[in-house]
């Protein structure tokens, strides 16, 4: 006599389970299936090709009607089970159908998560889960128009590619800074983004959906930052939730999913569960491979095998978008004892990363060339010792003596019209032509013939790469000091290539230049953050985690972990009100030390980190703002009292100093910038040992730069003399902007000037008026995005996590 097996749900997991069961114990059960969908079992994983038009529904059917008849299965289509009577061992469906069971399998799957923003229930807002969703999308796509997909994970991107293939204009909104962050590291995420953008899909990262707009029907999406994106349909693909209601109502143990043990059995021994609705060892799965593994165990258990056990799964993912090859498997995080092997071929658009421990593969991310994905996955699952093939492992299974990596690849990939030398406007093609036609063999010869790298010299590394490309082994370039151990490129090359390749994120730079580590180090990350910030003002999003603590929290860390606070005093001028506010703050927060600095400011030392926002709020109330004493930024403009008071003063040095400081505060620079303005050649403001100095004379303003009075002591160089205050300001701003564009991170102005040459700088910021104006304009543009008082922002609550402990266990102890 057969036992009665009832299955709730007819997705891929129970379908596979029944196949195994019929093989292991063909006549053990009379099977009844309840399917809420009005159709047979189909391959949900292949919905994306149906959406994009590469497959039809008939192609993805797993079990057709004949299969159910052959196996004597009673299939209730379009029939949703609404209750389980565990005592009477029956299930009841919405239409009143009742079925009795000896064993019950719950496979209710999952439901798409819908972001509960205003407008989420408007017609035209869809999810991406089953064939009904796909049909709704296809109906919408047939009319053309615009689609917005919320969610840049696997499903969202497949939906986006499918809709785009069907002729819609598609925008993907993703909350996180990189796409598919659960499966991919930032470098691979970046490559994926580029590939999608290249095929015409707009990608908006860090996009937080505020509301879905529309009157009676969806018309667009509004983001938190106020941006609005028009849309004829909105597809939500932000994640799934295990469908647990049935199990919960029946009184089974349910956490995030219906809890099952290694035997796929729920808290009721006669009820099994599997698929996306379950939670096994704290883990819920949404990929097909684990579901199949569960299906096999559940089938064997039903067939009476008491040893069958499910031990959890390692998972692999492949994005099903035609033309984009992407594969990720296992655990690819960094960690103790873990090593990584990274292969980057920026020109070929290939990225491969293997994570190993004890000579065994733990995880793999492949982009561009995924042919070896299953091979790596197999080695990983079987725990194969790869030490013997380690040297060539990354090249894949069919490795046959691959070419060594070429460090000049990034330069080779540039088009002929890419500008190599910004100072003299020389492009790559011109340089290569000259090398070839003139038979040039060295850097000096290229400089003489083309002028490339003959001015500031910051593109020398690139010119040398072109020589290598053209001459091969015949050319031996001079050694360039690399930025850090993560790369072979020097600072200048990186800066130039950021511009030439229009790179706008740290992962993008690391990918294009073949960084040896996956996440950089404490040397290169702050440098890259500055270069990107300086190159793409208003576009690049500052990465706080790549900044030194002082710049992250806008105060100077001291030896005991407390901070010092220096408010701005424009030109060194203060007032009774400001001093009173400072005195009050010192009393209120019991600040131990107050000191006058060399830059004519007041420094409060020993402030506890958690007090910083409150200290700033009080200082702000008196009109005091951040003095940037903590930053690679404009620090101070020191002045003397000039014609206001001094009997020798020739110009209004205080006024000019204040004007310079108000114009330039907030700007980030390669290293700190200290300025001084003296009202006469007696030079009381000590302008001739500053990064930039002005010495006023009767006939105008003598502009100095490249002084030093720290580790090195050096008098300034004279840039030149100008007649008016306006001209002085313009020349100083242009000078600092040139330094911002050419300086290496942490390189002070005097070192930059020594490297580049005082003459070169003077030619650009003083003699060439067009260039001076262009530099000035770029600085002004950049200031639009940097002149916000960081103290006021943080006193207002921004980055609150920086200033508060995550938890205080002292309080816990007290409570116990």
């Amino acid at each position, binding site marked *: 006599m057969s036992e009665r097996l009832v299955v709730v749900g007819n997705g891929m997991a129970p379908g596979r389970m029944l196949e195994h069961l019929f093989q292991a114990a063909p006549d053990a059960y009379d099977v009844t299936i309840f399917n809420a969908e009005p159709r047979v079992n189909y391959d949900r994983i292949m919905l994306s090709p149906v959406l994009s038009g590469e497959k039809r529904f008939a192609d993805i059917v797993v079990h057709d009607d004949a299969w159910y008849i052959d196996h004597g299965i009673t299939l209730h289509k379009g029939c949703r089970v609404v209750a389980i009577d565990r005592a009477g061992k029956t299930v009841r469906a919405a239409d009143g159908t009742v079925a009795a069971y000896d064993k019950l399998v719950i496979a209710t799957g999952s439901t798409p998560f819908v972001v509960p923003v205003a407008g989420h229930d408007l017609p035209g807002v869809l999810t991406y889960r089953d064939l009904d969703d796909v049909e709704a999308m296809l109906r919408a796509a047939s009319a053309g128009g615009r689609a917005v997909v919320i969610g840049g994970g696997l499903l969202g991107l497949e939906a986006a590619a499918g809709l785009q293939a069907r002729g819609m204009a598609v925008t993907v909104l993703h909350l996180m800074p990189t796409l598919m962050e659960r499966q991919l*590291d*930032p470098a691979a995420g970046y490559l994926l983004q580029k590939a999608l953008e290249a095929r015409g899909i707009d990608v908006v990262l860090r996009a937080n959906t505020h509301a879905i707009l529309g009157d009676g029907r969806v018309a667009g999406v509004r983001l938190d930052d106020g941006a609005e994106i028009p849309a004829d349909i909105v597809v939500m693909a932000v994640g799934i939730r295990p469908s647990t209601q049935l199990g919960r109502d029946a009184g089974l143990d349910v956490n*995030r999913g219906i809890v099952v043990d290694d035997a796929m059995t729920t808290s009721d021994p006669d009820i099994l569960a599997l698929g996306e609705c379950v939670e096994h060892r*704290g883990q819920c799965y949404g990929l097909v491979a684990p579901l199949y593994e569960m299906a096999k165990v559940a089938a064997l258990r039903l067939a009476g095998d008491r040893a069958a056990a499910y031990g959890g799964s390692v998972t692999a993912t492949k994005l099903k978008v035609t033309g984009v090859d992407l594969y990720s498997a296992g655990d*690819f*995080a*960094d*960690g*103790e*004892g*873990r090593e990584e092997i990274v292969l980057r071929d920026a020109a070929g658009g290939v990225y491969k990363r293997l994570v190993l421990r004890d000579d065994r593969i733990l995880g793999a991310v492949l982009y561009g060339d995924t042919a070896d994905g299953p091979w790596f996955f197999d080695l990983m699952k079987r725990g194969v010792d790869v030490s013997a093939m380690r040297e060539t492992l990354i090249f894949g299974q069919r490795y046959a003596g691959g070419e060594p990596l070429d460090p000049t690849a990034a330069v080779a990939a540039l088009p002929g019209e890419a500008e190599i030398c910004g100072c003299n406007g020389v492009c790559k093609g011109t340089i290569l032509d000259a090398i070839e036609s003139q038979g040039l063999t060295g850097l000096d010869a290229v400089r003489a013939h083309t002028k490339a790298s003959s001015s500031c010299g910051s593109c020398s590394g690139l010119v040398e790469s072109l020589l290598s490309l053209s001459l091969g082994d015949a050319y031996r370039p001079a050694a360039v000091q690399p930025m850090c151990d993560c790369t072979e490129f020097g600072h200048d090359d990186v800066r130039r290539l950021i511009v030439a390749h229009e790179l706008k994120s740290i992962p993008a730079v690391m990918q294009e230049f073949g960084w040896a*580590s*996956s*996440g*950089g*180090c*404490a040397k290169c*990350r*702050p440098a890259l953050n500055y270069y990107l910030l300086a190159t793409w003002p208003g576009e690049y999003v500052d990465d*706080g*985690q*790549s*900044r*030194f*603590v*002082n710049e992250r*929290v806008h105060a100077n*860390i001291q*030896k005991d*972990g407390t901070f010092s606070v220096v408010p701005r005093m424009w030109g060194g001028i203060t007032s009774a009100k400001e001093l009173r506010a400072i005195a009050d703050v010192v009393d209120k927060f019991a600040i131990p030390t107050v000191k006058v600095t060399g830059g004519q400011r007041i420094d409060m030392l020993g402030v506890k980190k958690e007090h910083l926002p409150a200290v700033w709020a009080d200082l702000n109330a008196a009109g005091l703002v951040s003095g940037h004493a903590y930053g690679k930024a404009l620090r101070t403009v020191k002045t003397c009292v000039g014609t206001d008071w001094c009997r020798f003063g020739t110009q209004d040095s205080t006024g000019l100093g204040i004007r310079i400081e108000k114009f330039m505060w907030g700007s980030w620079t390669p290293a700190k910038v200290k300025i001084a303005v003296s009202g006469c050649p007696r030079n009381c403001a000590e302008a001739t040992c500053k990064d930039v100095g002005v010495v006023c004379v009767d006939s105008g303003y003598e502009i100095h730069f490249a002084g030093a009075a720290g580790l090195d002591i050096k008098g300034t160089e004279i840039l030149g003399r100008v007649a008016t205050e306006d001209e002085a300001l313009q020349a100083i701003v242009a000078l600092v902007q040139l330094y911002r564009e050419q300086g290496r991170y942490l390189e002070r102005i005097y070192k930059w000037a020594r490297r580049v040459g005082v003459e070169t700088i003077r030619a650009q910021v003083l003699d060439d008026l067009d260039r001076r104006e262009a530099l000035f304009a770029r600085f002004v543009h950049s200031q639009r995005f940097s002149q916000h008082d960081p103290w006021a922002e943080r006193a207002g609550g921004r980055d609150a*996590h920086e200033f508060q*402990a*995550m*938890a*205080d*266990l*002292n309080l*816990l*102890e007290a409570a116990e």
Partner: protein
Amino acid sequence: MGTRWIDVGLLADIPACGARVVKSPEGDIAVFRTSDDRLFALRDRCPHKGGPLSQGIVHGTAVTCPLHNWVIDLASGEAQGADSGCARRIAIRRLGDRVQLSAEAMRADAA
């Protein structure tokens, strides 16, 4: 007897590639989150001069101390390169979206 775990907050409370401080009777604990959401916890004192490691730049599975740029391995607490010294590790785990520290490991006298 299993380990007793103390809940200290949400994973989302810690910035990726960053750290937070948990105050405890035995001194501050630095709780680190890497770019790929792995968690580590160390006493918030650099073995060099006691600098607050929680304030350093987190890169890969290491942190660079903000005072004198010692690089400390998050997994072992050991100083890297030519420097030597160790910041004591504290057992940490993630349970769903919660972060928990081992209660025993937080005692100053624990190994």
